[in-house]
């Protein structure tokens, strides 16, 4: 009898929890979705030297479609400072063209130093997700801190490209060099 009472109370709690769960928004996602959302948010805190108002804001993903899919979705629903977003996936370094942001996948991390010297990318923010990549030429690198995704910034690399990062962004970075 006592068991029945407990079970009834237990299910009442379950029903309450399930109904109450419809109340608020969520903040969770796959690493690729979280990082892609970061990339979109970075655009509000970065200022490129030449800001054409009509040309699309160009993001290139080098090597992997893991980031291409979420970024391509974001391009369909968001704009950067009133400009449409164009996302392109390339799989060879020879296909690189001028862009605002270059997302480098794991397969091309060895090419970071040469990418940084590439004349076509002299006004490009290079974003990576790998250990030690910040000192190898990345402008922004994602890192894991206590099972959360954070980012570190190579301010020197951005300065050389005359790309300004807001003080707020620098403050939120887990590391700035």
């Amino acid at each position, binding site marked *: 009898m*006592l068991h029945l009472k407990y079970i009834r109370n237990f299910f009442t709690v379950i029903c309450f929890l399930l109904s109450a769960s419809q109340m608020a928004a969520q903040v*969770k*996602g796959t*690493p690729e979705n*979280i990082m892609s959302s970061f990339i*979109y948010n*970075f655009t*509000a805190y970065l200022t490129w030297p030449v800001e054409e108002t009509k040309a699309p804001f160009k993001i290139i993903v080098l090597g992997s479609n893991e980031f291409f899919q979420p970024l391509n979705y974001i391009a369909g629903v968001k704009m950067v400072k009133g400009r449409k977003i164009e996302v392109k996936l390339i799989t060879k370094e020879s296909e690189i063209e001028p862009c605002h942001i270059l997302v480098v996948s794991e397969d091309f991390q060895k090419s970071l130093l040469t990418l940084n010297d590439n004349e076509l990318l002299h006004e490009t923010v290079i974003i990576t997700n790998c250990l030690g990549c910040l000192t190898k030429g990345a402008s922004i690198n994602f890192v*894991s801190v206590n099972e959360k995704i954070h980012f570190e910034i190579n301010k020197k690399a951005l300065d050389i490209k005359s790309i300004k990062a807001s003080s707020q962004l620098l403050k939120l970075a887990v590391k700035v060099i």
Partner: protein
Amino acid sequence: MRISWIRTFASVTLLLLAISTNAQNAELDALLNAGIEGLLDAEIVSASKSKQQIKDVAATVQVVTQKEIKERGYQTIEDLLSDLPGFQFRNIQGFNSYVFQRGIANQNNLILVMIDGVQVNELNSGGFYGGGQYLLSNIAQVEIVYGPASALYGTNAISGIINLITRKETDSQGVNLSSSFGSFNNYTLAGGYGYNNANKDYGFRVAGQYFSTQKTPLTNDDGDNNWDENLENFEHDVACDFSGHYKQFSFGLNVQDKRASRATNYRSTGTHYLDQGTLWNIRFINGQIQYNYATEKYLFNPRLYYRNSSVRNNTIAYITDTSQARYFRPGNLIGIDLVNQYQPFKQLSIIGGITFENENLAKDYGISLSGSANEKPAEPPQPSMMNNNLISVYFQSDLNFLKYITLTAGLRYDNSSYYGEILTPRLSLAFSKGKFSSRLHYNEAFRAPKPWDFTAGAGNEELKPEKIKSAEWINSFTFSDFIYGSVTLYRNYLENIISTQVAGDTWYWGNSGEMTTNGLELGVRIRKQDFTSWINYTYNYSVDGSEVLVPEISKHTANAGFHYYLGESLNFGLRANYTGERKNASLTQSSNTNEQLFPVIDPSLIIHGSIGFTLSRTLDCSLYFNNILDTKYYHTSNRPPDRYRQQERSVRIELRYKLR
């Protein structure tokens, strides 16, 4: 009947697939709306390989975060585990309490507890200490691994692992202070400070806590008349953490000093034991220094660590009508772990390492006795020490193939100077696609006897380690963007159980008996930005070799709860814990039939609540209500007091200040 179940299962599966179709876009929309600061706090639902704790891949892992510790007001490690699936407890309301994971009763020596990866199980007994000496306000998160894990961690990792990850200076800078006080003279003072210089790549964090409480009143009727009105029943703990990094080097130091009364260990009514004056003082000191070398495909983490766990020489273990007994038992260990992690290509990662340990253990307590109940004994003699050397080599590889399947295989070889050679394998096959994952694990593990177990009593040189073989099938579903569910089935077979054997007028430790547990864990978690809830149910059917239910393990346990943030200034939550009927470990004589029977501990449903207020950007406070209904409930016992009454209704207020 079976067809009906299959039909229902198929319908639910189809429903789940339908629900998850548009999950990807909804997830992105929500992330985009979270803003950059919200993203910094975003929860990762399926970590990429580079971010996984590879040591824990072949296991069920639960995580409790600092936010949850604060919301629910956990003060002890048992509080923290009580809202997870698969845990039962034996709290004797004294110097220690005991945690049973997945249906195996024990003396805390079948679970490894670690702080930042270094064990804090007591060296001499192999068992960890429950209680309030863990500095929970300085914990970033607690990772609880289910199932045997000796293939990577060696002896004692039979039921699981509890790893407390401390807060680091990189994400906990500035000053934090907190203070709480409540019923039963329960109060804490805690503080911490973190400094990080990102440009020069160094930083440190220091934190400390004092915790004091009177435990559940067990005098007279409340304690089944096992003790009188003079019973002392307290716990006073000090804990400190110090950690930091300089470029690729990192270090950590943890100190825990636990002082608790031990009078509840024995019944005083009708015996020669007294209720006052006992003190169990144990101190744990753990230190480590680590170097992190990383290239694109290779990680090398050599780590030097030191462990000290000593029952201090001011310990008064018991007081009788005629004397006091003072104990001393030191123990220390130094080790080096050379961990290598190599990922030659995306689908394959390998972790392997070599561990060297040297430990010095007291052969027995150093004991001094006084001549009367009121006289303090002289300082106990230094006990003779034993030295043990251990070399371990371990290896585990994860191979991903056919895109959705990962095969994990691991092996560990231990060679100890006293318990010899042991080989421990593990094997796992995982399928993961989209919102569904299914994993099959086979794990083995062992608990080695301690050095003196071979010589205690009449001695037994043939004593072998206890061994467990475990098969586990885990299925997890992400029903929608915020509802996660899991179903786990497991079967554990424990053999060579080490227990006391009687031979004529003497005794010895021997391997005798076996135990089988068939278990089921069901869990549903809901996590949204402002709302969290959980429901867990666990079924354990643990029987010995004669198919008799083992004592102290209930077949049914469950817990559920929620926490909700109503705007920025108010949050509140409720949580409930249910433990079904279980039989006691010790026999008592039936008053009706004169038979020796195992007394039964009744089922219990305990409800706790909390309310939090954010008073300003730097100040917040919480009110915690434990055992709201003031339910009278008991835990089992493996000693003469047949059962121990548990926590009564209590209220506590906590104030927290944070300045960055």
